[in-house]
């Protein structure tokens, strides 16, 4: 393990990429930042631009019109980077899993490579923290 990877692990900055979710997952991310599950304890920070980020936290089933934006956000994130697919929709498509659905571009893994999945609708804050810790340990 090189020096740079140690620092990657010590200060992961997360960008929340919203890809057509229902806001359930987004509220749980906010709960992670609150007093109870405060993820700043470990230096994790929610940043506002994908150019600052190390980890992309993608929520939602990715509708067709969001697909190019998600690809662009992934391209804008500087290397080394990791992707977390969050929520039932992000992991598998959730209630939109039907293959004949005309407006869904698929779960996140069909569009960009995914490292860690956090299932749940929405996932608990403990689960989100656990997923971020797992992806931190892969750096």
């Amino acid at each position, binding site marked *: 393990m090189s*020096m*740079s990877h140690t*620092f*990657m*692990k*010590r*200060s992961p*900055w997360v960008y929340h990429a919203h890809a057509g979710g229902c806001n359930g997952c987004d509220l749980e991310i906010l709960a992670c930042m*609150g*007093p109870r599950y*405060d993820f*700043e*304890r*470990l*230096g994790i*920070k929610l*940043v*506002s*631009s994908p*150019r*600052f980020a*190390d980890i992309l936290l993608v929520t939602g089933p990715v509708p067709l019109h969001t697909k190019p934006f998600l690809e662009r956000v992934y391209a*804008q994130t*500087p*290397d*080394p980077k990791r992707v977390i697919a969050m929520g039932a929709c992000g992991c598998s498509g959730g209630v939109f899993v039907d293959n004949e659905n005309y407006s869904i571009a698929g779960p996140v893994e069909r569009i960009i490579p995914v490292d860690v999945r956090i299932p749940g609708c929405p996932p608990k804050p403990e689960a989100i923290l656990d997923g971020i*810790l797992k992806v*931190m*340990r892969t750096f």
Partner: protein
Amino acid sequence: MDLFWINPLIAFCCGIFLSFGIRKVNARIQGRRGPLVRVPPQWHDINYSKILQPLYDILKLFSKKTNIPATAGSLFIISPILAILSGILASLFVPIAGVSFSYSFDLVVLFYLLMGELLFVIIGGITSASLFAVIGGVREIELMLTNEIPFILGTFALAITYDTLSIQVMMGFNLITNPFAAIVVFLAILVKLHMKPFDIAEAESEIVSGLTTEYSGKLLGLLEATKVIMLFVLVALFTDLFLWVPSTGITAVLVFIAGAGVTCLLIGIVHSLFGRFRIDQATWWLFKVPLVLSIIAVLWAAIPRYLL
């Protein structure tokens, strides 16, 4: 031997602790823990202590790849370097526990270096051709124009009292001799550091991150390091001008650390207690309150000198 050449190093190292302190104060007021001083054993594979968190952020950014947008000009790359250079030069002129590169008019040079740092960040952001950066740049220039007058008048009130432009000579516990100047300079420091009532230029929820939106990797690391140095320079300037008790040797270091700690605590409390101004409210407020206070501060210093 002159010790002033290690000032930039001290500025960077102490700036990291001050930055950590502000994050911790902010978190504690919001009822959170903030970056942990002692990490529990199950997370020891990540880290033992998070005291150096701002340093980890900067080193991580330096170990990342830098994406440069196709629309960006060459100033996009040059201006963060110039910004950190002006930050480093500014740290030479601020007395740290009484040690600085001092001569008879170093206060004026310090003004231009502090202004230069902001200008280089603005130029770099605007050349990225991102709309968010342009909006942020316009807001930053508006804030700078309204903020420089009270800042300069506030510090020049002390210059009138002591009849000098050298920071070394006008150092002292001037909170008592000119409280209006202290309030004005504190407000100006808040604006220069983008702390909460005045973080309009990098409002994360409106314009993505303002001027730094298109920066990534090593260039963003340079900008973060500049922020850390500027935090220390401005906190040290406030400590020197208003909270300094004349002393030498180890006492001077202790007095300086205590003053910087108090200033940092105040900045952290204001940062976490207030919401964000709108840009029109902020410019109007800066004209109403600090400008009037700074004129009172100048009169407070000038009237006893020339009338009595």
